[in-house]
């Protein structure tokens, strides 16, 4: 197992690369969902103010 994580000595580059890459993948998704949620809230608020 430790051999797998060591990646023949390149683990210190490989794992941060995958961490950053997939971290950004999660971040893009979270930001997209929050953007949709905020847009829905804003639309609801406007409808309540101008029924």
């Amino acid at each position: 197992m430790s051999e797998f994580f060591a990646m023949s000595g390149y683990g210190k580059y490989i794992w941060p690369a995958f961490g950053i890459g997939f971290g950004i993948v999660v971040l893009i998704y979270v930001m997209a969902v929050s953007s949709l949620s905020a847009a829905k809230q804003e639309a609801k608020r406007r409808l309540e103010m101008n029924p």
Partner: protein
Amino acid sequence: MATWTWFHRFASPPWVYGFAARWAPWFGAAAVLAMLFALYGGLILAPPDYQQKDAFRIVYIHAPVATLSLAVYSTMALAAAVGLIWRMKVAHAVAASCAPIGAWFTVATLATGMLWGKPMWGAYWVWDPRLTSELVLLFLYFGYMGLRAGIEDPQKADKASAVLAIVGAVNVPIIKYSVNWWNSLHQPATTKLLGEADMDWSMVWPLLLMLAAFFLYFGWVMLIRLRAELLRRERNASWVREVVT
């Protein structure tokens, strides 16, 4: 006639909103599944490279995000052009939805590239044509988003940002072919659309699967962002009342 007019519905914000709501979860499920299989193939099944050893595995994250950074910009420029020429609000909304996604893909490309560059070239960053043109791409995304945010009138913002997106598209082939046109430390493409890849199939299939996964993922998050963009743009339309209540 009907076969030529089916795409007209893509100009209708409520239809596109419904389409995005229906299809986004399917794109998401397919993307996550494909990413998991590709990760298994790339990190466990694929053998080490004879020159780069295990360091080559960075390709399974770097190449997909790099490809998407260009594909998203191309989609954004194309949508901007359609919006500008045919005055389609939905096309401008697509372009606006693409920009933050593409900017993050470009950040991921630069960061993962730096982590690959250090063990291969001995430096995190070199002012190489490929790296420099990719950095210019990030500034183009920032410029597009900054311009949109800086203009209050949505129609003027659409027009001005569309022009910038279209002009900036000249950078896409520069990035793609920089490794062929100039002396570059960056390796040329390892997979080709036509012709044989320079890698063994056991290494290639996880890469192709990861590429497909990232395209599906882009479809997923773009459709979510597009729904948000349409709600903001159409806030006074009657269909918005129906979808939020």
